[in-house]
């Protein structure tokens, strides 16, 4: 039964993708129905896996010695992320019914979204490092194809290729990790690797550990690979919500959390993870403070929030990171989809042209504000509980400097969130008139808004599930009562709330702060170049292109030179052979 559910959660979206393509773009209505139907069924299947979570492989198909077995293990981490992927995926598809209505090539859109959902569920559930890498790459492929869905727009194409290449570059880290695990243990099974980790030579293990961090940073858009995520905002907004906020970008956090027991003792690794998280959280928050594009604002905020999760893993708070992952998936999907309905209605992403849209779109305004409160981390919404849990773990087990910086990040988060809300909804009526969201849009927004209020109540069963199915992680159950008493009793909570209030106040009384009337020039410049990383990217691209241009000169097109190449080759081969003996 469990095996069937797993196959359904992964297979239904894939089959749905094929069916949508087969239905054809001439029957748009049917395409909507098929996409919603298959994604909803997959979500139901994935939710049904949760109560049966366990640490043993429910599915195992042998692929031979070089690939290992395709195993699916519905443990706490996997089943939970698969559920998030399919449920948010379903809501994004429902939202698309309105958002993508009348768009050309709907078949390609829905197919790719559905393949993505299937691949993401498989990525979460598999316990084989080879297949983890395989599904990791498939999600990257779908992400690329959907970012550049509007292929006629050069920015969309550039954004898609950039995302693909950066995540693939990081993927080499995961590749090396999987290959090294196989070379050391003779198996691709994660559980085998985790058990054998203490006996793996320290050098190899640290290469693997940093390989995992590289892969995670690229996938989760963390420093220094965060540059692709803002550019990925050219994708249709439901895709941004699903792939670039709620699911795929979490894969990096998931990877770190899953392999944490093996790498926790690698010298310097936890500090490196904390550092990546802190730097990402802070610089992304700073960039968000001056953003004027609504989707880029949310993208920066995603990088920043993912930074909190990375920080949590580095500080040893594996459960806290996953708990925040859940909250973030819900409230950020809500924010993105709400932003999507505004953009769909106004036809612009520029926040300076949106002022006053709140009056025309009251429903969207209300749910957006709910999401914003969760993002700031105010009680009683889910973002409050999970962020406080992270900060508490950070204070107890992480370095002090990191905690202080993360507190500053909380203030910045409050500042940019309030700034965004007031620019979009409450400044002078500047822009064109919009219409409120359609029925399908409201359905998914409403469900996510309710989720923002209630998902933190799942803490008990969620933590019990993880504690029971992940013995090597050393987790323990945390009931709602314990969570409430821990959070309300901890000084960390009041520090964080104070920081958030400072941030809110800074926006409220910005006119009284000297020099804060205008965005500081250095910050704008730093944002423009993504704190120098964008410049570095460009330098690398130019260098590669120049190398290509230089080599092109060797292809002279003249036979004499070609023959000379042969003679040169003979000498080179003789030298290599003489050297190799």
């Amino acid at each position, binding site marked *: 039964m469990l095996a069937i559910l797993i196959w359904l959660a992964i297979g239904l979206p894939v089959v749905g993708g094929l069916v949508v393509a087969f239905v054809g773009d001439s029957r748009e209505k049917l395409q909507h129905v098929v996409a919603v139907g298959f994604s909803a069924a997959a979500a139901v299947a994935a939710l049904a896996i949760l109560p049966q979570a366990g640490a043993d492989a429910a599915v195992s198909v042998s*692929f*031979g*010695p*070089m*690939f290992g077995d395709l195993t699916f293990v519905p443990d706490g981490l996997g089943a939970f992320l698969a559920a998030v992927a399919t449920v948010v995926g379903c809501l994004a598809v429902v939202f698309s019914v309105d958002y993508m209505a009348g768009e*050309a*090539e709907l078949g*390609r859109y829905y197919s790719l979204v559905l393949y993505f959902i299937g691949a993401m569920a498989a990525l979460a559930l598999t316990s084989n490092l*080879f297949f983890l890498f*395989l*599904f990791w*790459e*498939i999600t990257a*492929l779908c992400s*690329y*194809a959907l970012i*550049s869905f509007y*292929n*006629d727009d050069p920015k969309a*194409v550039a954004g*898609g*290729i950039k995302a*693909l*290449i950066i995540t*693939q*570059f990081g*993927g*080499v880290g995961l*590749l*090396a990790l999987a*290959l*090294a695990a*196989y*070379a050391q243990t003779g198996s691709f099974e994660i559980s085998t690797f985790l058990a054998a980790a203490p006996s793996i030579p320290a050098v190899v293990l640290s290469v693997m550990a940093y390989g995992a961090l590289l892969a995670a940073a690229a996938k989760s858009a963390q420093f220094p690979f965060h540059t692709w995520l803002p550019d990925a905002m050219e994708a249709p907004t439901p895709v941004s919500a699903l792939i670039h906020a709620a699911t795929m970008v979490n894969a990096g956090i998931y990877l770190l959390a899953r392999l944490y027991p093996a790498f926790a003792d690698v010298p310097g690794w936890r500090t490196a993870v904390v550092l990546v998280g802190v730097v990402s959280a802070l610089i992304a928050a700073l960039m968000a403070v001056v953003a004027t594009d609504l989707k880029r604002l949310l993208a920066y905020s995603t990088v920043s929030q993912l930074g909190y999760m990375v920080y949590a893993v580095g500080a040893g708070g594996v459960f806290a990171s996953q708990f925040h992952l859940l909250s973030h998936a819900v409230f950020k999907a809500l924010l993105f989809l709400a932003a999507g309905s505004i953009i769909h209605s106004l036809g612009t992403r520029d926040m300076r042209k949106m002022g006053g849209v709140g009056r025309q779109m009251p429903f969207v305004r209300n749910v957006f504000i709910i999401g914003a409160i969760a993002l700031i981390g105010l009680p009683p919404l889910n973002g409050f509980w999970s962020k406080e849990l992270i900060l508490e773990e950070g204070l107890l087990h992480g370095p002090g400097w990191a905690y202080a910086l993360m507190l500053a990040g909380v203030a910045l988060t409050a500042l940019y969130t309030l700034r965004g809300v007031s620019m979009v909804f409450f400044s002078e009526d500047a822009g064109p008139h919009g219409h409120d969201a359609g029925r399908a849009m409201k359905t998914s927004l409403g469900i996510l808004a309710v989720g923002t209020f209630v998902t933190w109540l799942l803490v008990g069963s969620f933590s019990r599930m993880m504690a029971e199915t992940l013995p090597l992680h050393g987790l323990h159950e945390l009931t709602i009562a314990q969570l409430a008493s821990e959070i309300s009793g901890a000084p960390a909570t009041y520090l964080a709330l104070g920081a958030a209030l400072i941030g809110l106040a800074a926006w409220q009384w910005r006119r009284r702060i000297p020099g804060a009337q205008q965005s500081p020039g250095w910050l704008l410049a730093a944002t423009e170049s993504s704190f120098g990383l964008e410049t570095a990217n460009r330098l690398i691209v130019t260098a*590669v*292109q120049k190398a*290509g*241009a230089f*080599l*092109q000169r*060797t*292809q002279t*097109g003249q*036979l004499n*030179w*070609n*023959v000379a*190449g*042969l003679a*040169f*080759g*003979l000498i*080179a*081969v*003789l030298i*290599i*052979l*003489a050297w*190799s*003996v």
Partner: protein
Amino acid sequence: MSVNSAVVMIFLPLIMAPVIYLFGRAVEKTRPEWITTAVNSAALLVMAVMWIPYVLTVRQFAVNGPIELVYGEVSLVVDGVSLLLAAVALALGTLVVFYSKAQMSGKLGDEKYYSSVIAMTGMIIGLGCANDLFNLWVWFEGMAVSSYLLVVFYRDRPSALEAGVKYLVQSAIGSVTVLIGIALVFAYTGEVGFEALAAANLATPVLLGVGALFTIGFGVKIALVPMHTWLPDAHAQAPSGISALLSGVVIEAGLIALLRVLGVLSGDVMPSWGVLLMVLAAVNMLLGNLMALRQKQVKRLLAYSSLSHVGYMLLGIGIAIYAGQPGGAQGGLFHLVSHGMMKGLAFLAAGALIYAASGASHDTSQDHGLTLSDLDGAARRYPFTALALSIAVLGLGGLPPLVGFMSKWQIFVAGFEAQSVAVAALVVFAALNSVLSLAYYAPMVNAVYRRQPSAAIAGGVDLPVSMQIPMAVLTLAVIAVGFWPRLVYWLIVPAGSALSAAFGG
């Protein structure tokens, strides 16, 4: 004694090639469509019939192991490697003959075209079975001669002639180099047979010198850098079906020839061959990618990408030789098969778009170079061809769930199993090269899915079914084997063990 199926497999194409030629010549000069269709059908029939002895030989091999055929001094051996090469040659050959029907329809010279394709297929099959150095050279040269004719098939096209001249001259030098190498071996040992040579003891300097000569000689055909300069010209100028064959199987046949001879030049120098192949692999991967990165013409880009894919094959086999990892040989040969499928598909799809764009007139005297910007919007007019091209190039870029991902993976696994830092570093380098290659593959996919069609696409003619079926077969293969690599294990496992055995693994 009943006729051995292996004999039929090797010699049937060589008998049928002139038959097809004469059949086509029966009606002189005029080429009404029904004639070219008849010649095409006859050629297709020959290719189809050739599968019968092939399948019988595979069965015989499965039961009895390697099959040895002796004719006086000369002997041929059908082993795993022979069957693998024959499968790729036959499969691509059959599909290309099918595919070429529309291109050759009503055109002069079709009988030459088909008979050359059949002869080339036969030569490649024979090359895989050769069991002595000289015999190997004869098959190799036969393959080269038939491919010269095909590269300059558009003999009124100046650029095709230019490419043909470069190809012929460079290949001929390579061929002489091989001969000198054979003469040296023969002079030192008095033997040319593989078994005798494998047992012979040659001094290390001689082995290295002869190995270098063979590497250069066969390396021209394999397009090892810096002997590669003819390849982008010839592969881009040949008719598209021929480009598919040249990239998909001819360069690989050269690789098999090189491996056969290096395999018998054993002794203490064995690891040196591994090192040599791995160094050449690194150079080929990087240079091929950097050169492809800046190409504007689709077929030229694909030709350069073949350089880098040869690098992956060399890497896998180099690992197998250097570290004694049979998995590397399997991986390298798997990549040979998967590259044949993907690159064949890419060239066929590009050729279909060229055919569509050049219109019904199909004037072959000028080079209708399909540029990257000509790909714009292909998906709206030719959805299937665009999908096929996308799948081919994404597979070449190593993305799952396509076959290129699986074959590269297998090579990488073997590399890490070697437990050597240098080899592991080389594997990481190869993986980074795959990432780099996406920088030129991905824009092709983006281009075909644009909404605004290019002039070439907008004015294109419909594509005949005879072009689409071969593409459909290859597309399915690229996906199916990508999902389930075991589909080709019957080919690559025996071939891998034969190769490993030759290198003492």
